[in-house]
């Protein structure tokens, strides 16, 4: 009754070895195209700085690279990067504290939800350049201005995710805890906080990206130190080399925060809850 499969085990292994090889070749082709892509990017950059513009207008990649290195090793990278980072962290922490309260409010209170929704919709569609310029008007050139504006921009994102985390909590867990006679504070620390933490962290990461962008812009308009200020100063003295070098450092710091700090914390947390 049984029909024996008409392929021998040898044939099977040979066939799939071919498919495996094909998959490997395809993967290497893709890596190769990525390599070509980067080469082309650098090459086009060289072409532009030699042929279309002059090295004054667009310095070559290696010049920018050495300039970045010089900034890191010799120049005042410490003072400026530190200034920017301190301000953005201050604004971020301020936003975090405020949003915990507001997030709680909008999660459980419909009236506050409508109110804050209107305000958030207004501030979110305001272009950040306009906010940066208004910072200049309201606070002048100071440290306080960038901090406040950064906090204002970051707050909606954290607040939103606090609320999302709180409403996403499995209600059965709360009812269960209550039926076991846990107190209110026990439920908060034991159920609510842990289960909303991941959502809050996602919001924090987004908020940090937005805050870091906002920080740069406010510094361009209304600061006397910091990365943005340096970029602006380079621009005003026609120093494209310095400008691009500072931009590269700015992006690197952003990537470090994105990929190392936040991603690591998230992974830790997920490992614990999973």
């Amino acid at each position, binding site marked *: 009754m049984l*029909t024996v*499969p*008409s*392929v021998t085990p040898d044939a099977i*292994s040979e*066939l799939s070895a071919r498919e495996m090889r094909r998959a490997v070749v395809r993967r290497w082709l893709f890596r190769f195209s990525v390599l070509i892509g980067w080469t082309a990017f650098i090459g086009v950059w060289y072409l532009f700085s030699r042929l279309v513009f002059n090295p004054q207008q667009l310095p070559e990649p290696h010049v920018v690279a050495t300039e970045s290195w010089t900034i890191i090793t010799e120049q005042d990278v410490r003072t400026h990067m530190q200034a920017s980072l301190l301000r953005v962290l201050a604004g971020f922490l301020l936003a975090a504290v405020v949003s915990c309260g507001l997030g709680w409010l909008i999660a459980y209170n419909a009236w506050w939800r409508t109110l804050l929704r209107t305000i958030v919709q207004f501030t979110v569609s305001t272009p950040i350049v306009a906010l940066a310029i208004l910072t200049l008007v309201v606070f002048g050139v100071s440290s306080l201005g960038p901090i406040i504006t950064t906090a204002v921009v970051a707050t909606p994102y954290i607040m939103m995710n606090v609320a999302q985390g709180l409403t996403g909590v499995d209600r059965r867990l709360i009812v269960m805890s209550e039926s076991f006679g846990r107190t209110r504070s026990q439920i908060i620390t034991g159920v609510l906080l842990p289960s909303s933490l991941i959502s809050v962290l996602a919001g924090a990461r987004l908020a940090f990206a937005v805050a870091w962008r906002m920080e740069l812009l406010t510094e361009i308009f209304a600061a006397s130190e910091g990365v943005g200020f340096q970029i602006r100063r380079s621009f005003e003295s026609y120093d494209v080399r310095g400008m691009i070098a500072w931009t590269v450092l700015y992006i690197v710091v952003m990537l470090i925060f994105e990929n190392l700090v936040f991603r690591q914390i998230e992974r830790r947390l997920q490992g614990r809850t999973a």
Partner: protein
Amino acid sequence: MATVLIENLTKIYPPTITYPHRVQALGGVNMSVTGNVFVAVLGPSGSGKTTLLNIVAGVETPTSGSVRAVQDGVPAQVGYVFQEPRLLPWRTVLNNMLYVQDRKSDRSRREAEFYLTMVGLNEVAHLYPSQLSAGMQQRVGIARAFLVNPDILLMDEPFSHMDALTGRSLREYLQRVWLHTRKTALFVTHDVSEAVELADRIVMLRPGGVVFDDIPVNLPRPRHPDDPAVRAVEGEVLRRFDSMEAAVRFGAQAG
């Protein structure tokens, strides 16, 4: 006249990151279907039924062996009812039907509406798939397969997404439509009574994608699932499955 000729068909999926082993979905299937017959492919879950239809439809390539689906010497047009509805979520039901038409004329629109009426869905032609129940979506898939005026109908468990009541009436409906059109049909299912009710011939697969039996069903149509003759064939099919399982188990012990 449409013909499906399957010769020594093998499909082996290479290892993936999540499942680092080769999977033999089909192991040397030989089968030929000619003319206006309704063939049911019956097998338990994972026996390679979907893979078989995908290869016949030209969606997947075989590892070895060959499949030819021709109509009077030219490649046949297939109408494929997939295991899931596979509708464009961003198009309305009617536009999903028109999607498989080459031109969007008034005539094709009327045809589309005709087949939607056939599955009882012309009322919802202007809704999006997400607004339909799973069974309704599957019915749109059935209407779509008829719309292309196929030479060969491929159906992959078309009724498994619906409640038993709708499935039963659609089964009956499919039988009537098929008697009317008599398209060559390959019908995949794991439901024995479904196979016996609809098919002229039942090809039985076992895990590993191996045909272990092929029995004709010579009952008069239209058939009714409660008919004693239908019941008798069902019993015979089940008995052969049991003896296959016993043989496999016995073979495993002996080896």
